[in-house]
């Protein structure tokens, strides 16, 4: 069916992330929504006290997310840090009526049991989404990175909530100003090689 094909597409290459909200959603409805969405990562779903945010990321958003992940992995590789990338992990807490899915997340070190990631990364390509810090706080993710308009801000979890910090506590020594500078609109894998070369040179390898 011709129109069925059109159903699956998003039309003329949308430039923004697309957000849709539903209110008055029970936990059971939210879990049903997760089931409908299935194993894929689109739309991304967040849940907070009855509100569901469905997000369809733009191509640029997904691209930036992937490149940041790869750059982080290059850094870990050069500095011999063990890591496990978990991608868009659905972090849920029924009791706290909270659910959130980061763009990328990581567990560092050699732990076998993972209850939650050490680091969650979110790309803010289009503004207007839910402020996810409350959601991550309830899940207890120690560190958040938000990329927005070329800059990565770092948020460390304290008993009172997240505070913006200047340096990563999960990956001490990583320079996120430098890392963010390698993420740009015409980025290719050459940027990964250049980043690796920059890091090695500094390390004296």
């Amino acid at each position, binding site marked *: *069916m*011709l*129109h*069925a094909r*059109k*159903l*699956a*597409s*998003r*039309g*003329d290459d*949308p*430039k*923004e*992330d*697309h*957000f*849709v*909200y*539903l*209110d*008055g*959603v029970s936990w059971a*409805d939210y879990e*049903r*929504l997760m089931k*409908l*969405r*299935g194993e894929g990562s689109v*739309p991304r779903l967040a849940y907070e006290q009855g509100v569901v945010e*469905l*997000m*369809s990321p733009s191509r640029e958003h997904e691209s930036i997310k992937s490149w940041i992940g790869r750059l982080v992995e290059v850094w870990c590789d050069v500095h011999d840090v063990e890591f496990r990338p978990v991608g868009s992990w659905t972090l849920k807490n029924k009791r706290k009526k909270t659910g959130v899915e980061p763009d990328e997340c990581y567990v560092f070190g050699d732990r076998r049991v993972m209850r939650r990631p050490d680091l969650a990364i979110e790309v*803010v*390509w*289009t*503004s*207007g989404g839910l402020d996810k810090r409350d959601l991550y706080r309830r899940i207890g993710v120690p560190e958040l990175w938000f990329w*927005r*308009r*070329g*800059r990565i801000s770092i948020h460390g979890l304290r008993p009172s909530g997240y505070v913006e910090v200047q340096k990563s506590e999960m990956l001490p020594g990583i320079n996120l100003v*430098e890392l*963010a*500078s*390698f*993420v*740009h*609109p*015409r*980025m*290719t894998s*050459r*940027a990964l*090689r*250049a*980043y690796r*070369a*920059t890091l090695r040179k500094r390390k004296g390898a």
Partner: protein
Amino acid sequence: MSVAPITGAHMGRVDPHFGDAYTSSVVLADDFAARDDEPKEDHFVCLHGVSWSDYERFLKVRGDRSLPRLAYEQGVLELMSPSQRHEELSRWIGYLVLVWCEQHEVPFSTSGSWTLKSKRKKTGVEPDDGFRFGDPPHPKRPDVIVEVIWTSGGIDKHELYRRFGVPEIWFWRRGRISVHALGPRGYKEVPRSRVLPGIDLDQLVSFLDRPTTSQATREYRAALRK
């Protein structure tokens, strides 16, 4: 750390990714800093494998609110959140049609957003606005529905409206309203409305750019009186 200016000669001689990897990257990354990231498009999210009862559950949860708009067809659910400009346009079109109907003493009912659905046809759709003319108004479906195409994307709704027998669709797109009339083989673009013969939609559309709604309706009313 200083940023090296990019000149044509520099780009020619040095690979921007290797020559001075860090500083060149910073210049390119600055492309992002200046970007306006406020949402302006209509927003669409699609879900697949949605059953009819799931769709009805979504309608129930959404309730009386008009957003997001939901369209359903054979297992695919589209949720749509229109941009502010999109919403404005569809509201204003409704007001101006009301003005025209008042001037021409045509009984007119608008219900804002309207849910057309059929379990048997596994179809559901919600136009931006739906009008019914005459007294009493048609009990089951609008005579004319209005769809503002602000940004492309989303389900092609012609087929969905056809299943409900909606006589006319008025599409606003890029400053123009086109009329699509339902015939035996589906919708066909026609030069003027048959449901409201005599309405000049090119004239109506020209009043959508006023700074306020009241100015638009006042000036349109004055123009119709001439």
